[in-house]
């Protein structure tokens, strides 16, 4: 016995198969941003707990896509209690003065298969830099899942000033992995 709700879900699924679904609202609880820094050659993992934003993405028309992501920098875990306390400070992220980091896409193009590339601007600590980030897209049920990796050079954003600008202890390159889950847009 199918409930009306199940019938409606089945209809939506069929519709999804027939025509592309557009994805919109980011689900903060399912999305995450993790990073790996290198200290004296030692990879150290960290991440951000709070990520929000809007995505307009139709895999059939990637050129029309746009994304705006916002990261609450105070939600950082830098890998150890001591490091987490340190990186919110002035020399690193200066979270008091710059509580959020943001990414605003300018264009998205298809790379073939489920691979795409987003170009846009990343703003951290008041500095805005161009960013190109390849990502894959998967549809999981009613949600769209975006996974990507890029390398950020921390000194481009003044992350780690003073004695910390020495890249022989903490490397300039920080690998960032994002996993963004967005719900289907309401039409």
């Amino acid at each position, binding site marked *: 016995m199918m409930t009306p709700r199940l019938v409606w879900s089945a209809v939506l699924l069929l519709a999804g198969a027939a025509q592309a679904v557009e994805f919109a609202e980011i689900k903060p609880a399912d999305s995450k941003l993790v990073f790996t820094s290198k*200290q*004296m*050659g*030692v*990879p*150290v*993992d960290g991440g951000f707990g709070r990520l929000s934003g809007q995505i307009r993405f139709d895999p059939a028309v990637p050129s029309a896509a746009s994304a705006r992501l916002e990261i609450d920098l105070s939600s950082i875990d830098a*890998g*150890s*209690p*001591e*490091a987490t306390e*340190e990186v919110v400070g002035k020399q690193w992220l200066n979270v008091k003065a710059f509580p959020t980091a943001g990414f605003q896409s300018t264009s998205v193009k298809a790379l073939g298969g489920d691979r795409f590339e987003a170009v846009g601007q990343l703003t951290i600590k008041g500095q805005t830099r161009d960013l190109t980030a390849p990502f894959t897209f998967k549809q999981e049920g009613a949600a769209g899942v975006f996974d990507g990796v890029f390398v950020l050079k921390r000194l481009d954003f003044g992350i780690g000033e003073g*004695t*910390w600008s*020495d890249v022989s*202890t*903490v490397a300039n390159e920080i690998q960032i992995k994002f996993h963004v889950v967005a719900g289907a847009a309401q039409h």
Partner: protein
Amino acid sequence: MSFTTPYSAPAKFAHWLVAALILAAFPLGLYMHELPLSPEKLRLYSYHKWIGMTVLLLFMPRLLWRLVRPPPALLPGPAWQLKLAEATHWLLYLLMAAVPLCGWLMSSAKGFQVVYLGLLPLPDLVGKDQALGTLLADLHSSLAWALMVLIVVHAAAALKHHLIDRDATLRRILPFVKLPSGETRP
């Protein structure tokens, strides 16, 4: 075997190398722990770990060498001193392995992989677990202090043999010292 048989050259070399490494790692450990987080602190932590891993690396070959080429017999002395000397040596060996091993475990638990000399990543022995990391940090520190106490006892005994008993105990582990055969008292 004569009482004045010296230790073999590899045994002498390993003894003094490990002694130097331990005596460098211990004060370094005490000092770096108190530093505020800085690039210097990260560097010193790495050096400390590399020294510790070198001690651990030398442990097995040393033990094997000891089995292949047993050290010269202890010089005669009161039974309790001979027993104490034997016990001290084995405890020194035990701690020489336990202190760096515990440090490695602690580093893993705190989420920092050990990368030997900045080149060779060593496997994490346990998963990241801050509570376990704190426990292992306490253990690492306690064992290191115990090792220091034993080293003081060991060195004091060697000096007592050299200065008070005036026998060859210390000289037979010293590098570049020739012992006349059959000598028991200088």
